[in-house]
């Protein structure tokens, strides 16, 4: 390699070091503004569908708009924040009969793969850990909007995800089949770019 060629290759390599390739943007769940909803639905004695939510969660999303399959999600939910708008039922849900929050205070989801679909949708597969048991589940996710917050002018993004699990798969069997086994998961979040 002559001197001119070496100089040109070295220049390109230097530029590559100075200008690294664009990485995924990291977003943190908007816990300060509580702009999130982590809920669930379950059959109650075969009559109505009971709704509940968790009031405390935190997490982050590494979102790569150019390559969505490289995105990553990590969410931690405080199981003791379960809220079904009924104090005694909430106490029961926190007890060893169900979530057993004294022993397993956190519910976690860590993505392992993202399969993009059409129109901003994706199948997000990851490890969900409830009650000390970890199972792989797939959520149907959708990017709702990525942009600039109109008031604080900060980058913000919103996602929605839905899924279905069987609580018995996670060792939560009390009350079956009177209280349903299938649980619908709902997650709607806003996250602020770090």
């Amino acid at each position, binding site marked *: 390699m002559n001197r001119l060629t070496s100089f040109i290759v070295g220049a390109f390599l230097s530029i590559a070091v100075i200008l690294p390739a664009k990485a995924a943007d990291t977003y943190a769940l908007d816990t300060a503004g509580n702009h999130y909803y982590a809920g669930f639905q379950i059959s109650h004695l075969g009559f109505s569908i009971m709704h509940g939510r968790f009031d405390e969660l935190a997490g982050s999303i590494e979102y790569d708009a150019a390559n969505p399959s490289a995105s990553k999600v990590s969410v931690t939910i405080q199981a003791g924040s379960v809220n079904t708008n009924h104090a005694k039922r909430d106490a*029961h849900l*926190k007890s*060893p*009969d169900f979530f*057993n929050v004294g*022993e397993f205070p956190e519910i976690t989801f860590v993505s392992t793969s993202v399969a993009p679909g059409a129109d901003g949708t994706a199948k997000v597969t990851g490890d969900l850990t409830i009650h000390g048991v970890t199972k792989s589940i797939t959520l149907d996710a959708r990017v709702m909007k990525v942009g600039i917050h109109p008031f604080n002018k900060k980058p913000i993004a919103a996602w929605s995800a839905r899924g279905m699990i069987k609580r018995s798969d996670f*060792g939560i069997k*009390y009350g079956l089949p009177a209280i349903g086994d299938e649980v619908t998961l709902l997650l709607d979040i806003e996250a602020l770019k770090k």
Partner: protein
Amino acid sequence: MNDLLANPAIQSGAIPFFTALLVAAILGFSGLQSGLRYAGLAVLAGFLVAYVVALGLPPLPPKSSGQKIAYIAILAAFSGLFFGGRLKALAVAAFGIVWIGWRKIVAEPSLDHLSIGLILAGTAIAIFASERDAEDSADKAVPLLVISFAVAGLAFMGASASIAQNAGALSAALGGLLIINWPKRRFGLNAVARLVPIMVLAALATQITLFTTAPAWVLVLLLPALFADQFLDRWQASYTALTRPVFIAFIATVPAVAALSAAWFAVSSGPSSGY
């Protein structure tokens, strides 16, 4: 039929009672000498059948404290059959308590560590007190039945129906074995029959203390029930083989009622109830 099996009173009352009664009868009346020795396993059988009906088969290895209860019951039976001796039994019981509460034990020092120590002390008292009797004595089995019933009530106040059902099943299983030994003492009221309820109660007490909202301190109030037979002897009341277990049960009920009353007033919002 499904509705009947889903009824907690059936799951934790009738099923363990009749299972224990049937197993005790089969083993005890088999004519085999080993049958007389193993008839105490009726308590284990009644408890396990009730456990599976209410909560399903526990996974192996178990993850949560509730899933470990069935295995602790089996370990207790082995201890009663093969290990022998109070210290060995206490070691097995201590293992069960630590296995249930290890997540709290390894956490930052807190009142939970004191609670676990108190539960271990209470278990030691129960084991040492129960071994004072001769074999095939109902004198300690009857108070254990009453204590189990009280623990069920306490767990219910602590918003855990599954713990309450386990304790209730234990009480009913003991009842199934005791009824076949009343008024005539026949078989099975040996270490196996006593260690299964003692160790399961220790495990349930650990669950209640560490993982529920129940005022666990009232468990201490139940300990005097273990000495109901000695209170009866000091009382020097006249009794027969028919009435002695009844008197012991009555005396054991006094601290049980005191404990449940104290728990009731301590639970500000009242017990868990259907909703």
